[in-house]
């Protein structure tokens, strides 16, 4: 970080313009340990870890054209995890930081504002805190690629905005526009309350899910996306009886670009693909799987992703967007985001894949969860983590009825996957 401040990365620029109590732009990772968490030790661990991640020791400031990040020298705080998960970052409450560390019983959670980083970077930060916490508790633990050594030197590449750097490289060769489906279906349910976000966890055996997906000759992500899309189609058929009124359904799936483009960035570096189904066609489950599989193969092709990256960069660099004062951007962007952003997907699935921690840590960490923040229009979001021999599928919703989750897990049970269900905070009657 040069001169104590830095620009927001290309993907982050939209978040402060659209975030609200309803759309918080916050995601959460939790690690459940086999020991009870002590507040003072956790704070000590956090204070040590933050020195290795100076790019997270920042606060959001208002410029004339854009927001920017400035070094924050305020004290770090850890919170007891008793309020709604993924709630909005409030400056006054959090000393201006864009992440918060929480604890309850034997669980450490970290909530990140998307302005700061994406899931992969957030998970590395959490793992590093867990590593440091266990070390402070006197355990002999080691690191791997999912954890940063706090003694190591900070690499400049970690701070880079890979979106812009790589986008600029390919701006001339990959300038074709990438089309997206628009005006998609959103679940028609009333939002319960902006201070409530209901979390449902589905826990299943990873081998069993993997084998079931293999029966259909596809990956877990494709399999889960296909079930989600089928559910959305069914929900739409129930809610919209007139065939003519039915819209396309689509799911937003983030793609981590770090490995594909050799980036070390600890900021946002993900792109999104949105497989969709059109309402005029009749699909069997096998058809959907075949379609999603083909869609993934086609859209995750590196050239297609680069085109998407260039498109995002071009939007940011267009004179109108660039020179529109921030005050006006704040007024206009929610409308544009609604029309061009949320209107292109009916739900979100984020798969973090299998998280592998060193054996010395693995024996203390019982579980790792991932929760995506609320969205008032899609109303339901799904996230996956694989840890040890289990897969944790988490649904977050801000509606009373668990439409998607119910259909989703029932379908998995029907396909032969045994699912254990938990919800945050016990019964909701």
């Amino acid at each position, binding site marked *: 970080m040069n001169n104590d401040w830095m620009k927001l990365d290309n993907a982050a620029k939209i978040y402060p313009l659209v975030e609200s109590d309803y759309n918080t732009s916050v995601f959460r990772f939790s690690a459940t340990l086999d020991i009870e968490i002590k507040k003072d030790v956790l704070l000590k661990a956090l204070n040590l870890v933050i020195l290795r991640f100076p790019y997270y020791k920042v606060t959001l400031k208002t410029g004339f054209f854009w927001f920017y990040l400035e070094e924050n020298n305020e004290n770090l705080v850890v919170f007891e995890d008793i309020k709604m998960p993924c709630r909005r970052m409030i400056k006054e409450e959090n000393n201006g930081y864009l992440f918060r560390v929480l604890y309850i019983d034997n669980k450490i959670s970290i909530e990140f504002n998307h302005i700061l980083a994406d899931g992969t970077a957030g998970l590395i930060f959490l793992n590093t805190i867990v590593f440091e916490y266990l070390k402070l508790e006197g355990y002999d633990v080691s690191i791997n690629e999912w954890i940063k050594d706090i003694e190591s030197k900070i690499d400049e590449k970690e701070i880079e905005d890979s979106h812009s750097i790589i986008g600029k490289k390919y701006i001339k060769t990959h300038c074709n526009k990438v089309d997206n489906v628009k*005006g998609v279906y959103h679940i028609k349910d009333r939002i319960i309350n902006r201070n409530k976000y209901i979390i449902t966890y589905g826990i299943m055996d990873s081998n069993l899910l993997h084998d079931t997906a293999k029966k259909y000759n596809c990956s877990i992500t494709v399999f889960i996306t296909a079930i989600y899309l089928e559910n959305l189609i069914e929900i739409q058929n129930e809610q919209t009886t007139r065939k003519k009124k039915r819209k396309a359904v689509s799911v937003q799936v983030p793609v981590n670009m770090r490995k594909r483009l050799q980036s070390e960035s600890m900021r946002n570096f993900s792109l999104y693909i949105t497989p969709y189904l059109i309402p005029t066609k009749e699909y069997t489950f096998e058809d959907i799987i075949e379609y999603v599989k083909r869609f993934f193969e086609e859209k995750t092709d590196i050239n297609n992703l680069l085109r998407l990256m260039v498109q995002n960069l071009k939007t940011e660099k267009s004179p109108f967007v660039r020179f529109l004062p921030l005050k006006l951007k704040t007024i206009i962007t929610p409308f544009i985001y*609604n029309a061009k952003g949320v209107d292109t997907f009916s739900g979100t699935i984020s798969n973090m894949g299998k998280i592998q921690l060193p054996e010395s840590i693995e024996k203390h960490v019982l579980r790792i969860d991932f929760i995506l923040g609320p969205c*008032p229009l899609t109303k339901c979001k799904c996230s996956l983590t694989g840890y040890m021999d289990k897969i944790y599928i988490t649904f977050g919703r801000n509606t009373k009825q*668990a439409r998607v*989750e119910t259909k989703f897990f029932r379908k998995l049970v029907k396909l032969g996957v045994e*699912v*254990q*269900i*938990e919800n945050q905070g016990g*019964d909701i009657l």
Partner: protein
Amino acid sequence: MKYCMKCGVSIDEEKNRVCPLCNTIILTNEEIDNLTQQNIKIQQSVKRDKKQSKEKKEKINITGFTSFIVLLSSITSIIILLIIDFLIGFNIDWSVIPIMSIILFIFLICLSYMRTFKNIYCYITIDTIVLCIYFLLLNYITSNRISWSYFVVLSIILLWFYLSTIFINKLKGFVLKISIDFLATAIFVLLVSLGYNNDSGFAKLALPINGLVFILTVISYLFIKTYIYNWRAIISTLSINVSILCFGIDLFVQRYIYDKLTLNWSYIVLIVLIPFTLFMFYLDNRYKIHIYLKKKFHI
């Protein structure tokens, strides 16, 4: 661990008394032991009774029969009217108007009863044409020229435009539809003004009001679409827009009548709506406002 009977998922009965997915009660071992066969039988018989009472209700389809009766009685009425009129003066005179009205009635009612067209928009279009012809003929027969019917026909056509934007599925997007409605209204007002041989009302009054309504409708629509989940924001926006509309209408009317930019009645609306909007704004942002007040005034 117990299994939900509906979902098939396993649930820890000590943490959850109901299934987190479908709210089905999860019974503990003790409750299962206490469940008697008698209880289940009573519940089943109650369900069966309810089902039977529902099945008793039958629907009778009478639409075809009704349309036939209406058509028959209409034709009979026409014949009777013709005979009476002819017998009184040995020519067809006054009966033309009631006969025309009966024919109009047949078109409006019987066509829809007979389900001649599949699409409701076809009925609307046919009814529009029939109504226009009816009023034009009526006007011509009664006064030998087209006078008042000109305005009636214009109004019917305007209404048809409004309905077209609702029913034509090929027209996508609310903004496009509202733009067509705005244009249709502007042309309507222009033609009405020309009908009075005076277009000042169009330029000074109708067009600005129409434009204002159009802009405020588009703004309201965008707000509702974006903040559909936040009813307070929607009510605030609608309240602000209604205030602006009343304020605008009042100003335009005053300028048109007295050639002065003064307010006559809209301030009463503003007195009511501005505090209401501020209250809604407060409700929506009360947490932020409380924090701000605490910080600044130590309240």
